[in-house]
């Protein structure tokens, strides 16, 4: 998430529908909504904010494939070169059963990669975000929906934005510097 230190207006709404409406409204008025906070993933929010699709699957896929390949390589090397033994007349490279372990660890790798990717993509963990300076934000994890709009330079524009947001049934509007 791009963390430019800039002022922004944060508006509080009662319902996800109000939020979405407010975003549309603000866009129509030529403002640029930055982000929204919601207690659950609101359907259509990404589209409203024009957020691109998440790329989180790529690291998962890549790491999974690499680790699985590594696992098979390890099996092959240990069973065929490092410690070749006659085991029940089985071939040294028992390919029919060797894929089992790579499968398991591959999926594990995908999971680990996914979690790591989530944290990096979201810039987490970050326990001291400026948003938390506003107590009302607490309800973003409960029953309130917040919209972040980048504050315009001119004071007149800022005033207009505030009225726009309040017009969009915002309970409270407040300017924070993010």
């Amino acid at each position: 998430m791009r963390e430019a230190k800039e002022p922004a207006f944060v508006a509080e709404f009662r319902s996800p529908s109000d939020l979405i409406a407010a975003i549309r409204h603000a866009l129509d008025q030529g403002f640029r909504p930055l982000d929204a906070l919601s207690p659950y993933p609101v359907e259509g929010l990404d589209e409203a904010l024009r957020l691109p699709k998440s790329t989180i699957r790529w690291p998962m896929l890549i790491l999974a494939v690499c680790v699985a390949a590594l696992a098979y390589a390890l099996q092959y090397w240990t069973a065929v070169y490092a410690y070749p033994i006659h085991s029940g007349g089985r071939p040294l490279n028992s390919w029919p059963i060797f894929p089992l372990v790579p499968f398991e660890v591959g999926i594990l790798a995908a999971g680990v990669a996914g979690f790591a990717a989530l944290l990096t993509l979201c810039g987490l963990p970050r326990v001291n975000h400026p948003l938390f300076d506003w107590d009302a934000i607490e309800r973003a994890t409960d029953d309130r929906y917040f919209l972040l709009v980048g504050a315009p330079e001119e004071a007149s524009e800022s005033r207009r934005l505030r009225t726009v947001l309040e017009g969009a049934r915002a309970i409270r509007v407040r300017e924070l510097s993010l």
Partner: protein
Amino acid sequence: MSSASAFASGSARAKAPTLLGPLDDRAVTDLVCAPLLRPAGLRWWVAFLVCTVGLIATLAGIYKLFSAGVGIWGINTSVVWGYAIANYVWWIGIGNAGTLISSLLVLTRQDWRASISRFAEAMTLFAVSIAGLFPILHLGRPLYFYWLAPYPASMQVWPQWRSALVWDFWAITSYLIFSIIFWYVGVLPDFATVRDRSSGAWRKVYGLLALGWRGSARHWRHYRRLQITLAALATPLVCSVHSIVGLDFAASLMPGWREPIFPPYFVVGAMYSGFAVVVMLSIVISRGLGLQQLITARHFEAMAKVMLMSSVVMGLSYASEWFAAWYGGNRADRALLVYEFTGAYWKLYIAMLTCNIVAPQLLWFPVMRASVPVLVGVSIGILVGMWLERILIIWNTLSYSFLPSMDRIFFPTVWDWLFLFGPMFVFAWMFLLFCRVAPVVPMHDVRELLHREGAR
């Protein structure tokens, strides 16, 4: 509605509401967080103390086991495996249901799973960690369990990759870690919710656990994608894990074990016993934490149907086993089949069939599905039956194999029983703690469901 959900929620006529109103975002938060914010009640403390005693007894048993050797169990020269392996398979089976619920049901759009997925996943974590102990406890020299792992040892030896136990090692490890990630990802936003409602030291604790989650749309976007992907990955993982457990037996040449049907039939059996536990946990939690609004008749209805379906599949599996043994015409296989019904353990075998196949047929009747006592009874029966199934797979084959001179019967000792019941208290002990520190219901999922149903 998708066909899958039709199976789970019955015909539209019979469909009960998933959530009992009146409910809104705030109500959900209050319901779920209340148990965490208020001090534990007397009932909790009593239960916790009882389980602590059980936990200590189990630890004492482990101490005795490590100091005296596995000889304290009833295992013998022929029946070299006993309760430890049966318990292992039983627990890992239970451990499967949680992830199945929140992966398979996510993929099949079963909205009712939302309320139960969280504690079902917790159940998975605890069950799998307990299950993971047994393979180590059952070793003759447990201090060397790490020899199953590949590392550049000074002896320059490596694991024997053809052994099902090595597959187990990797399957259990992968499954446990993956489940932890899956669970933590799920609970992350809820920790944020609790963080913002709690105060004092706990606020800091939850603050750390929440990693600074804010519910930002830019986060939700990755979050949702990750959750779906993990669910998609968890499903094959769960199936593979119990298939591999099935291979512990199937990848042998002993009569009664060498059966290709074992992997799928172990997976179903796992789901079977897992759901039985979830049913009982759901009852305890909805009553104990006052969440009847979130865990409703609809849930029990759906889970009862899953168990019914599983029992039918189990019946078919047994039948196919018997058919294969007879049709294969092999002397040893046929003899074993006869032995199962007439041998030393025939009473247990009948009991197993009754618990797993006969009793669950009650659930064909809606009135039975609606009755909590019936559900509890059937669930307990299933758990007993599934444990019997696992121990009988071991006992019958090892007690009665190719050469009569080595036919030996297994006689359990007091230590066998301790290692059967002790871990149940350990499980309850962990679960009680879980109820006190983590939101037992995924609030963001429920809110989503709430809004979607509201939208309908």
